[in-house]
Structure formats: structure tokens, C-alpha cells
């Protein structure tokens, strides 16, 4: 798949779309505009026109592919089994190769992030440390108060307040490289700590390790882990994505583990597709295929091995919780039943179904940066739905959604906490000791 273009891709992947329109009602951008080019089948028609030589990889084409959230709701809805992920990533890769997005600033930021920071985990953590210091030292407050922030270019100024709060200590300070459960280990798993999760929500990684340990898993968590490459693949950089996939496979030989566990919906969706990404690499092909079979979202894995119901509640009093589905968890990985099943295991918690739980919150990787207006509309819709449930806590299993929804609830002044389902489990297990 790495290296393919719309012109060279297996044409039957494009033909698989028989334009029946079943995807239209599930597409957040079509819902907004009611125009076909903003729909999955419309975008596929444009890709097919590129493949047929009827259309150039134009700036309009690039803008359309950038307007697509990549939420993959269409892939769940598609009865014909169109592989939208592959088409979408190939289209975005064509766009980058042909430089159809113009702008020097864009190129600079893209090079800095995809080409450097997300290729070098130590540098990323260093940058994270610096950002964290900036936020906590009072310098950030000073910059905002004095208006120095206005010196930033408009696009950056808009998202500056959205910069997540960086944690003081990252996953490597919280989790030992090898941790063993009490008693006999029944499973051996690798724990992937992610990039955003590591910098912003390292406690979710600690909670994941704790829950795995409580369920008889020996957990390997190397201190330094490469980025999984999901950001790269999603943004048309399949070459770097392939490099990172090889590094991951080297670090976690899949034959050594019962499961390779991720707790971030966005990462997991990409992690499951190393096989197709490396299919033309004879050295890695077989291991990549094995890798795909071993990857699990942590919630899926816990249900698979029979998660032990906690004896204590994660909350001091009866709490109503609703669940927002990360797009790449539900549509990318088809994990939808398991998080709810885990939440139902928790005493003292009532689960309220969230209307439109599978509708994108607008986070969608860097979408809030590239398409701020549409991202805000989707966030507003999501926030209203969450508030409407009357729940005081919303569970979600992806750091992007977590940040986005927390921001939306904050702006709406809604006293609703956001939490990863696994953190609720971890809290419940911990309270077994404190309450007994």
C-alpha cells in the first residue's frame, strides 16, 4: 500500500463503491452541506475520476479530502464493503506527493511534526517537557495576558487556547518496563503508550497497566516507544508510516505476546493495518500480518479474557455515566459492545445511552486545526447530546475525543467529567482495598 497512488491502486477497490448512497446519512460533512462532493460516495467518485485521468489532483480535490473527517462512519454503513480507509489514505498521499496543498507555513509545520517530532519519541517528549514548563511557569499566562499571543499567525492563534495541558511526568516515569501480576501470569501483553496519551494522559496508561495486571496479564511497557504512524498515514505520509511500523514490530516482536494492547482508538485503528502497509516488504510482511492479528484495544482484550468485575464502585455515590464512541474505535476497529460491557461491570454506575454516540465529535486528528468551523459545529452537537443525557460523567477511549469533549463541556460550563473507561475500572479496583 505504501507507494500506491490512485492511478496505480487496484481499480477494483474503487469499483467496489456502487454508489447506492447508503453512506450518505452517516457522513457528518454531507449532513452539513447536502452536497455530494462532501459525501463518501462523492469523494470516491472524485478519486475514481483521478484514477481515470478525468481529474487532476487539484487544490479543490485536496481541500475536499481535507474536509473529510476520516471518521470512517461510511465504512461501517457500507454494505458493499468499500475499503474507504485505503482509498482515503492513498488520496491524501497523492495530494502530498503532488504538493496540491500550497503554503510554506504548512510545509514547515508538517515537516516539524510528522517528519521530525513524531519520528523521534525522545525529541517529542523533550518538546512536551518544554511546553509543559511554559504552561506551568506562568509564562503562558503572561503571554496571553499581555497580548503577545497576537503575534502568532491567525491559524495558530485560533488553536493556541486548545493546546492540551502537558503532564508533569510521562508514562515511562509511571510504568516499569516489565510488570508482573500478583500470582501466576495468565497472559503476556505489550502495552503501547501512544504519543498524545503519553504526554497528556499518562495516568490512563498507568490505569491500563493496573487493570491488565489485575486481570492476570504480565505487562511489557518499554520506556521509549516510537509513534505508531497513525498520524502519518492519516495525513498522507505513508513512507514515514511504514518506517514507524517496522520500528514497532522490531520493538514488540508479535510472536512474543498474546496481545499487543492499545488504549487509544485512533492508534488502534491504524495499528491493526500494518499488514497491508508492509505487504510489499518481504522482510516484514509475515510479522506484520501476525502483528495485525495480535493487536487489541484494551477493552476488547479485557472482555476476551473475561474481565473480573470489581467489588467496589469507582464513585463515592451512585453516578450516571454515558459513553461516547471514538470513531476509530467503533468504525475503524468495530469495538462498540465491549466498552459498554465493561462499564456495566462497575457497581454504583448507571449507563445512559448517548444519542448519536457514533457521530464524530470533530476532533478527528488535526481536524480542529485544519477545519475549525466544522469541528466546532460537531463539538457543539456532541456537547448538547451529552448534556441532554443528564449524566455527570462521559466515558470515551481516545485522547483526541477526550480533549475535544472536555473543551466543549468546559465552554458550555457543564459540570461533567471526561474519563477513559479503563480509568474507571482501575479506580474501582483501587477502591476495593480502601473500602474493604
Amino acid at each position, binding site marked *: 500500500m505504501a507507494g500506491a497512488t490512485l492511478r496505480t491502486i487496484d481499480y477494483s477497490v474503487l469499483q467496489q463503491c*456502487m454508489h447506492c*448512497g*447508503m453512506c450518505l*446519512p452517516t457522513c457528518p460533512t454531507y449532513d452539513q452541506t447536502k452536497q*455530494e462532493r462532501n459525501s463518501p460516495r*462523492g469523494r470516491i467518485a*472524485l478519486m475514481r*475520476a483521478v484514477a481515470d485521468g478525468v481529474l487532476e489532483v487539484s487544490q479543490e480535490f485536496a481541500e475536499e479530502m481535507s474536509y473529510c473527517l476520516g471518521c470512517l462512519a461510511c465504512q461501517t454503513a457500507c*454494505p458493499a*464493503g468499500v475499503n474507504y480507509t485505503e482509498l482515503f489514505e492513498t488520496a491524501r498521499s497523492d495530494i502530498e506527493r503532488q504538493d496540491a496543498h500550497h503554503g510554506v507555513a504548512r510545509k514547515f509545520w508538517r515537516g516539524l511534526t510528522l517528519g521530525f517530532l513524531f519520528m523521534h519519541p525522545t525529541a517529542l517528549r523533550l518538546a512536551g517537557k518544554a511546553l509543559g514548563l511554559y504552561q506551568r511557569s506562568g509564562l503562558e499566562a503572561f503571554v496571553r495576558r499581555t497580548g503577545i499571543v497576537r503575534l502568532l499567525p491567525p491559524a495558530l492563534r485560533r488553536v493556541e487556547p486548545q493546546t492540551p495541558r502537558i503532564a508533569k511526568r510521562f508514562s515511562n516515569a509511571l510504568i516499569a518496563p516489565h510488570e508482573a501480576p500478583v500470582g501466576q501470569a495468565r497472559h503476556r501483553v505489550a502495552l503501547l503508550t501512544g504519543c498524545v496519551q503519553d504526554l497528556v494522559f499518562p495516568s490512563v496508561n498507568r490505569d491500563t497497566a493496573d487493570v491488565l495486571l489485575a486481570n492476570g496479564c504480565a505487562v511489557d511497557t518499554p520506556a521509549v516507544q516510537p509513534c505508531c504512524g497513525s498520524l502519518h498515514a492519516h495525513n498522507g505520509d505513508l513512507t514515514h508510516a511504514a518506517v514507524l511500523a517496522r520500528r514497532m514490530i522490531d520493538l514488540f516482536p508479535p510472536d512474543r505476546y498474546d496481545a499487543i494492547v492499545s488504549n487509544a482508538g485512533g492508534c488502534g485503528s491504524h495499528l491493526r493495518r500494518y499488514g497491508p502497509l508492509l505487504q510489499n516488504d518481504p522482510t516484514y510482511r509475515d510479522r506484520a500480518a501476525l502483528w495485525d492479528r495480535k493487536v487489541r484495544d484494551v477493552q476488547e482484550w479485557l472482555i476476551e479474557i473475561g474481565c473480573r468485575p470489581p467489588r467496589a464502585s469507582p464513585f463515592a455515590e451512585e453516578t450516571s455515566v454515558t459513553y461516547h464512541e471514538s470513531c476509530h474505535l467503533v468504525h475503524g476497529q468495530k469495538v462498540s459492545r465491549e466498552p459498554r460491557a465493561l462499564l456495566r461491570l462497575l457497581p454504583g454506575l448507571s449507563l445512559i445511552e448517548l444519542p448519536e454516540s457514533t457521530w464524530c465529535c470533530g476532533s478527528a486528528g488535526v481536524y480542529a486545526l485544519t477545519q475549525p468551523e466544522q469541528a466546532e459545529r460537531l463539538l457543539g452537537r456532541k456537547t448538547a447530546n451529552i448534556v441532554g443525557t443528564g449524566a455527570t460523567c462521559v466515558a470515551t477511549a481516545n485522547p483526541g475525543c477526550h480533549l475535544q469533549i472536555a473543551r466543549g463541556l468546559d465552554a458550555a460550563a457543564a459540570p461533567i467529567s471526561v474519563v477513559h473507561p479503563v480509568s474507571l475500572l482501575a479506580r474501582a479496583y483501587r477502591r476495593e482495598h480502601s473500602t474493604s
Partner: protein
Amino acid sequence: MFTRAIADGFTSIVGAGSVLTKLEDIIPYSFDGTAALRQMPSAVVFPHTTEDVSRCVTFAVAQGVPIVTRGSGTGLSGGSVPTDGSVVLCLAQMNRILDIDPRNLVLRTQPGVTTLAIDEAASRHGLFYPPDPGSMRISSIGGNVAENSGGLRGLKYGVTRDYVMALEVVMPDGRVARFGSACVKDVAGYSMKDLFIGSEGSLGVITEILLKLVPRPLARQTMLALYERIEDAASTVSAIIEARIIPCTLEFLDQMTATCVEEFAHVGLPTDCAAVLLMETDGHPAAVADEAAQMASIARANGARDVRMAKNEAEALALAAARRNAFSALARRRPTTILEDFTVPRSELARMVTFIADTARAANLQIGTFGHMGDGNLHPTFLTDERDGHEMARVHRALDSIARKTLELGGTITGEHGVGLAKKEWLRQQMGDSSFEVMKQIKRTLDPAGLLNPGKIFD
């Protein structure tokens, strides 16, 4: 010839942003839900009011520009595929339900509202809009009226026509006409609304619809019957009707279709039997229980290997939803999926199913067949590849012989998809010369310039 000035003329009516002419904007309007038909329009125009539509039609006709009206573009006979040089008049943004009147059991709506949204609105008042075409989640009600769409519940509840009480139509000369009323009985003048139902956008543009609603059934029971022989499924259907039971759904799926649907939907459809009947009865709870028991025993008496009752409403809905995806799910097998819509009197069903299977075998073609067995409406679906000229020629010959057989058995070339581009070569044969000419005469009278959806239904 479509010029910048013509585009500007439309823009002055509907506003900038509601006229699309860029290549990237109009390529996605060069098809509908029909396989292997493609033609780019010159522009796409989005009106928002009846007045917009009237002015657009007047302007287009004055400029000699053909108009192809479109809703959600899910049609299955090429009815909304643009013709060369045409403007697509897309009504998807005229999507408001205007009024719902529970005292008179009617709902007034713009044409761009989806079929599902109509039924959901009705349901909030304990009412029901029964027609449920496979694409109901996205198909527009205007498109349903223009094609006189059917669905899974046709046997008991009829089709779109049975629920249209009145229409507002923009005529080819721009006049706004209203036909029908909210009265159950109304014989004032010709039944003009019926002329426009199923007219496929060739006589006018439907801009408002008054729909009849019925009380929502209080109970329903869905079940699956599994067969080793297709003929047994057909005889079960006949026996149920002979027992004076009119179920709301009697859907047939052959093995290929059931397998493809199951691969997509994972609802527990069996994949190891020659035929599956999806049956549903609805109404008063006591009647439903009684009919369901009778239908199950009739199925067993007619050779069903197994009869499975849906355990709850969620399972029933999942089964019906999965069935609605049958056509698209068949696309998993081959690159091109050509869906047919032949319908025969119920008594000829078994012969027709056998003939289709024999034709496929003789022509060495893959066909998945499913359909509404209760009303004789079959959807043999050719799984093929449009790039293979030899195979496509065989497909066309097979289609032709199935069409001829259908007519020989007293059937129709299309039960619910319309003629559009896909069926027009057989229409004269089905109708006979004089009725075909009467129909063309009506078209010439109402649309003398021939600019409304030209080349559809007939040349």
C-alpha cells in the same frame, strides 16, 4: 450550449453557493444508484422554495437547457442520471416537514425530506408511514413519489401511490399547480396527482407532498424460515395467502444474497440453505400472535427446515435493516452489480425464479436473487464487471430473455424502480403501441420542448 451567462442566470435566482459548475463539484452528480450509467451535468442547482423551482424551470426552458430533477440520487433505473448538457435540479436542501395533522392523519412535506424522517415524524404521533424502500434512510420522499417506490411492506400496505393525497407541481412552463386534497373522498376533475406519481421527473417538478398516515401497528412478529429448495419457499408464500393471511412482509433471499448480507450485517442469517423467507406480521397483538403461529406451521408444512422467531423488537429491526441492504451487499462479490426489478403475478413466481436460475446457468453468469415474494416483485441481481465487454454482452442477452419471459407470464419489467434509462427498451413491448403512444402524447402536451428529464422512460 451551457454558458457562463446561463450559470449566472441560475445564480441570480437561487444565490451564489447554490449553483455548482466546478468539475470537482459536479463529477459526484454524474450518477445515481444505478450501475454502469454515467454522464456529467453542466451544472447543479439547489432551489430552496417552490418559487425558486418555478423560476429555475422557466429560465431553463427559455434557455433550452434540459432539467434533471434529483433528490438523494439513490434511484435504481438511472432516472436521475443527467443527460448531456443538462442542469441537475437538486431538491435535497428543500428538506423541511411543513406540517403534521394528527386529526386528519396527514403530513405535508417538502420533497427533499428522507423517507425515514417522514416515518419518524409520524411515529411521534403514534402514526405510521408504511412505504419503506431499501434506501429509506436516505431516499427522498420526492424521489419516492416520482418513482412510485415500493418496499418490503407492499403486500399489506401498498406502495407510495397509496399514501399520496395531494401534490404541488411546478409545470414545464413554470406554472405552479396543485392536485388532490386532504379529503379521503375527492373526485373533482381528473385524478391528476396520479399522473405525476411515477412520472420520473418527466412531466413536472414535485415541490410539495401531502401524505396519508395510518395508525402505527401495536405489535409485530418477525421470523425466518429456512429452505433446502427455492420452490418450497414459493409454495409457502402461496399457502399463506390461500390461508387468508396478509403478512406485512414476505421477503425471499437466495443463498448468495443471504451470505452477502450476513457478511455485512452479522444478524444471524443462515448461509447454508438454498432460500430464506423473512416474514413479518403486524397489527393487534392477539392477531399477530395467531398469524405468526399459523405462518410458522404453514412454512413447516411446506418443507421449511427450520423456523426461527425474532426474540425481540431489536432483533426484528436488525433483520429488516439487513434485508434492505441486500442489493448493496451483493456488490461484495464482483465489481459491477446490476439490479433488476421484474415482477410477475404471484402464481407465476416459482416458474420465474426457476427461469432466472436456468438463464444464469446457461449464460455462465452469477446472479443473486432476492425480492418481495408476497407481491411477486423479484430482484435478480447480476454480479459482473462492466469492463468485461464479452460478459456484459451475455448479461444483456440474459436480461432480454428474462424481460421477455416476464411479459409472457403477464408480468411487468419494473415493479418499483421505474423505467428511467435502464428499462426503456422493453416498455413499448409491455404497453403495446397504442397505450405507448397515448403516454408520449401526454408528455408532448405538457412538455412540448421536451426539456424535463429527456430520454427517460422513452426517447
